[in-house]
């Protein structure tokens, strides 16, 4: 049992892990003709860049809380509620966002951890199991080091600055540690579940449906971001009501809920009131501390479980069911773009990071739809709800769409030998993004129909934006295809070459966003005129993107 040996093993393993994260040779990517020493150094740099980028997002969220806790913003959102309660609610939201984002990052990263195959290499070495556990743990923690470290430093610092209290900052440290450990635990548990129940699942309609159901269930944390943001106004209003009524018992009950219990620690450390002057908050600190201690006990248990979990994960075997295929089965005829689309959906159904790209816009649409039911007062402005629904579905489909291209990395050293012309590939990917967008728009349409029955208007919004979605996806995938022809394919996710994903999404977001800008500029006049202008902008975007598409070379023999 040696931490020194574990660190040395983990260092070697991490080098391989970063290499596989970028170049994915074990997933069948085509070998580069660049010298291997350069590739190793480049891989480490790109992974570090991606980690810094994700850490930047955490940093912005943390530092943004200083602004949200400023008196001027509190005046807008706080609605006269006691400052302590407002701070507690904002810090809770901050912790929840950190938890969900780190969990989400874990879901993106862990398939790379598993696909690197580094664990099975270590298992053949004459090293005791405890050292192997430690090596796996160190490698696993290194996946998250920069983002989690940023969160650990900046979140307490930002709250300390906002409240002008160093003690408040220190009081938040256990909370952030707990959030990090819980996020890692959820990531590992989810990944283990996927390996055992999703990735080894056989073909067929029923199994596919079950896989998607599992994937949706595990995507709920991501959904909770939207849910929380959508409902935050109502939540603050509810808390304010409890404070104004002097319902201390109800407030104490809220303080026992994670992460509110932790969020109240800096509030009490800074001596902020949680209730009006007519009542006395005697037991609040006791409740918050007691609940936090209970969660810290869970944190200790989770940390203990984490010590062995990474190695257990890569030792988890994928169960395979043997099912004799009957003679009645037959291939289904599809065009080349449709074959690419169906292949991508099938891969996504067994690969959580790709599945999330499909599911997130749908869950977002669900959140927008549900929001119309719970929001008070009810928005009767169908145009406003329509724009909100269609724009979020459109922008999410456009933002996450380019990541679908990373599927091509899988087995690329073989599939590049197939007669698939770049145009067929591009059309297949664009169809996928368009389908995700239309499905998301359909979800909103169905949900809002019960509350704001105006299907023709919603359909008109969805149809007006569709050409722009197609145009945006065309430009994004066109750039990626051209780049892959010059530089080879790259894995693009939150952990690997995240810059590439972000950069390529920028023109797409501009194109998909332009029709909404036009609608908003003109909606002061007549909504229907604005909608027509939106559709026209969308069509212009498509016609421009088609010029780009036409320039993609069509090889001889391509259908």
């Amino acid at each position: 049992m040696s931490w020194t040996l574990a660190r040395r093993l983990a260092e070697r393993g991490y080098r391989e892990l970063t290499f596989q994260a970028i170049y994915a040779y074990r997933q069948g990517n085509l070998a580069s003709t660049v010298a291997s020493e350069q590739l190793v150094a480049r891989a480490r740099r790109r992974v570090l860049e991606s980690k810094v980028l994700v850490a930047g997002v955490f940093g912005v969220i943390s530092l943004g809380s200083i602004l949200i806790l400023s008196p001027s913003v509190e005046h807008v959102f706080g609605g006269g509620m006691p400052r302590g309660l407002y701070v507690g609610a904002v810090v809770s939201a901050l912790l929840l966002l950190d938890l969900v984002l780190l969990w989400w990052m874990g879901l993106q990263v862990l398939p790379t951890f598993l696909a690197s195959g580094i664990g099975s290499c270590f298992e053949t070495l004459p090293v005791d199991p405890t050292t192997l556990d430690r090596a796996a743990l160190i490698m696993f923690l290194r996946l998250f080091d920069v983002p989690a470290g940023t969160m650990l430093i900046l979140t307490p610092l930002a709250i300390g600055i906002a409240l002008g209290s160093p003690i408040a900052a220190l009081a938040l440290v256990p909370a952030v540690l707990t959030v990090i450990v819980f996020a890692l635990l959820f990531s590992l548990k989810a990944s283990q579940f996927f390996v055992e129940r999703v990735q080894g699942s056989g073909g067929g309609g029923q199994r596919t449906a079950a896989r998607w159901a599992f994937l949706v269930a595990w995507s709920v944390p991501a959904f909770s971001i939207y849910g929380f943001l959508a409902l935050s106004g109502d939540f603050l209003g509810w808390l304010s009501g409890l404070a104004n009524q002097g319902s201390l018992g109800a407030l104490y009950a809220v303080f026992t809920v994670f992460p509110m219990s932790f969020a109240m620690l800096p509030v009490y450390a800074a001596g902020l009131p949680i209730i009006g002057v007519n009542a006395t908050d005697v037991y609040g600190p006791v409740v918050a501390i007691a609940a936090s201690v209970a969660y810290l006990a869970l944190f200790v248990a989770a940390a203990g479980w984490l010590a062995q979990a990474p190695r257990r994960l890569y030792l988890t075997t994928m169960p395979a069911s043997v099912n004799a295929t009957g003679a009645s089965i037959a291939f289904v005829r599809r065009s080349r773009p449709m074959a690419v689309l169906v292949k991508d959906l099938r891969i996504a159904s067994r690969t959580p990071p790709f599945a999330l790209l499909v599911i997130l816009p749908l869950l977002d649409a669900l959140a927008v739809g549900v929001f119309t039911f719970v929001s008070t007062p009810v928005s009767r402005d169908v145009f406003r709800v329509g724009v909100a629904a269609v724009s979020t579905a459109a922008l999410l489909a456009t933002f996450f769409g380019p990541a679908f291209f990373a599927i091509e990395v899988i087995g690329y050293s073989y599939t590049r030998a197939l007669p698939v012309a770049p145009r067929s590939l591009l059309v297949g990917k664009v169809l996928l993004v368009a389908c995700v967008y239309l499905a998301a728009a359909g979800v909103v349409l169905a949900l809002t129909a019960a509350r704001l029955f105006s299907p023709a208007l919603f359909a008109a919004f969805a149809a007006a934006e569709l050409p722009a979605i197609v145009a945006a996806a065309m430009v994004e995938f066109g750039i990626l295809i051209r780049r892959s022809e010059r530089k080879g394919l790259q894995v693009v996710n939150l952990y690997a070459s995240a810059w590439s994903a972000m950069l390529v999404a920028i023109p797409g977001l501009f194109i998909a966003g332009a029709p909404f800008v036009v609608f908003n500029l003109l909606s002061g006049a007549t909504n229907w005129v604005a909608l027509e202008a939106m559709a026209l902008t969308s069509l212009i975007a498509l016609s421009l993107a088609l010029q780009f598409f036409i320039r993609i070379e069509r090889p001889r023999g391509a259908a």
Partner: protein
Amino acid sequence: MEGGTTAPGTELPLVVRDLRVEYGEKVAVRELSLEVRPGEVYGLLGSNGAGKSSTMRCVVGLIRPKHGSVQVFGFDPGLDPVLVKQRVGYVPETPLLFDALTPWEFLEFIANVRGLGVDWATQRALGYADALQVRAELNQPIATLSMGTKQKFLLIAAFLHQPRLLVLDEPFNNLDPRSVRIMKELIGQYVQDGRRGVLFSTHTMEVAQQLCHRVGILDHGVLKGEGDVATLRANLARGDATLEEIFLRLTDEEEGVRAAVRSLGGG
């Protein structure tokens, strides 16, 4: 089943001229020239790292050579990639496929991108799956299959469209003896119509001797010898030499092998 036209006057399945492949400073293939003639199984033999796989990757258009040319039935993989890929069936050295698909889903994708008739392709896929005894695995994710089973599905995918040129990089890796026997028979029959060709690489000299009409012996990217076994024997003035002996002689490894055995023999 593959379509398209053949460039006039160029009926040779494969012509490689002065091919050079580099990986950074490392030269994998040095000015290699070879031909695969109609009705021929051409064996590319060589040690690990001799340049066999790099040559094959150039032929199917996976990598671009530093210089030199490749013509598949008259078409250049760099200029007419789709026309070349329509005519070629390829088995890579390592069976790294879509782990998240089942073999059935994978073969259906192959059939669709190759534009095959679904009934015809279904029957062919099932026929091969039965012959190679992998029908029960058709609906399991590829990730759960053994390397040998994955290799069998790669072979099925390569044969599915009845390509005019088969490019098989160590195709018998991980296969059981029964499947090796079947595939050897199939490859032998495959070129009997006198129109198709097979480019085949292997480390197993016995297989090459049984299967290949001609062989090319690659050493550090250089073609050291080429021809049928009888011609190579005649060139070396050793009428009874096996292909293994010819290989070792041409790659100057005979003494190296003896020295290695001497140094390790006591250990």
